């Protein structure tokens, strides 16, 4: 094994390129989306931020107790907060209002953490169909909405479009200033159906199209 080298050293390793003929065989497989299995899992968030906060709090609380208990073992007086805490714990009955409020907050916090741990999160990312076994892709909902809006704007007769992209449905509200509404709607339906296929999502959203005249009721 050689030393870590700069990019010069690595580009010298031209023989590596000779492996590409071998890899050339791999060039064929990836076919355009065939969609044999639509079942593609969601993206699961790593939950970095909650994990960081919980770890920090855990560290602070455990560290504080450890420090104080160790210092008491070394014949120093306990910090005042610990004596106060012990006194409060020993005096407050369970049906004290503050105890109940505190317990409620703690329980809700615990429930929320459990929900965070058990749900995928990343609701803004829509899973795309897998075209290659090694590539997992996700499309942001906003981007999908932008694409649908742009395609809808290309339909003649459409003055403005609002797209609301949900996880399973795309709501398209268009305003049309000329042509028959039914024609515009039919055009929109076919254009958008094509655009949704073009998004390459694992679960194509259902489409709902509303067209109306500007400034007047539909």
């Amino acid at each position, binding site marked *: 094994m*050689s030393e870590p080298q700069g990019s010069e050293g690595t580009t010298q390793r031209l023989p590596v390129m000779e492996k590409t003929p071998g890899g050339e065989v791999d060039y064929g497989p990836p076919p355009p989306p065939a969609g044999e299995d639509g079942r593609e899992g969601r993206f699961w*968030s*790593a939950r970095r931020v909650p994990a960081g906060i919980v*770890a920090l709090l855990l560290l602070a609380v455990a560290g504080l107790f*450890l420090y104080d208990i160790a210092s008491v073992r070394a014949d120093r007086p306990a910090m005042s907060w610990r004596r106060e805490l012990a006194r409060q714990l020993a005096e407050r009955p369970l049906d004290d209002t503050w105890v109940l409020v505190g317990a409620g907050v703690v329980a809700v916090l615990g429930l929320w953490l*459990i929900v965070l741990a058990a749900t995928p999160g990343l609701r803004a990312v829509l899973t*795309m169909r897998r075209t290659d076994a090694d590539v997992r892709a996700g499309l942001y909902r906003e981007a999908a909405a932008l694409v649908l809006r742009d395609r809808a704007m290309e339909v003649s007769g459409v003055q403005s479009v609002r797209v609301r992209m949900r996880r399973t449905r795309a709501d398209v509200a268009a305003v049309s200033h000329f042509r028959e509404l039914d024609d515009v709607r039919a055009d929109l339906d076919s254009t958008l159906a094509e655009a949704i296929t073009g998004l390459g999502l694992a679960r194509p959203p259902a489409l709902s199209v509303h067209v109306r005249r500007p400034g007047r009721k539909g």
Partner: protein
Amino acid sequence: MSAVLRTVNRVLIGLVGLVLLLLGGSVLAVGLGLKPPSWWIHDGRHDVLLSHAERTRWRGDGWWWPTVIAVLAVLVLLALWWLTAVLRRRRLAEVLVDTGDGEGALLRGRALEGVLAGEAGELDGVAQAHAHLTGSRTAPESRVQLLLEPHVDPGAALHHLTTRALLHARNSAGLAALPAEVRLKGAKHRAERVS
């Protein structure tokens, strides 16, 4: 690594949540008048949270303080390790290239990232691309972010990325596989009327 960290994060968050829920829930239930079982630490709504007797029950025993201190120390170490694992941004420094003659070459991770991002950025309809390598140097993984221009279909852009940029990167580094996680975003722009 990232998949492991994700699991660890979720398991630990879930555990902490479970402890909090049990603590808060039990105090709430007993405090609101539910009859606790006889072995429970609280025996009614007028009991205190933690009485002096309960707190000092094992204080005289020789094992008590060492145990408390040991448990706290383990908790502190665990929290410290967890925190560093969460905060550390893993970036692959180098990739081991198998030259096929029993030797190997080291390719700087940044170089491969740059090439991958550059090639992805030149694809049709891609306004900007970022690439980030993770994993180990014998089995690198990539994370790619694309910013899409309005005219391209995301499905087509992904196909181009897979069959060109990713495949080139994989072949040029002589890797058997280069698993990738791709996120596609849209470049914000105003709607343009074409009629």
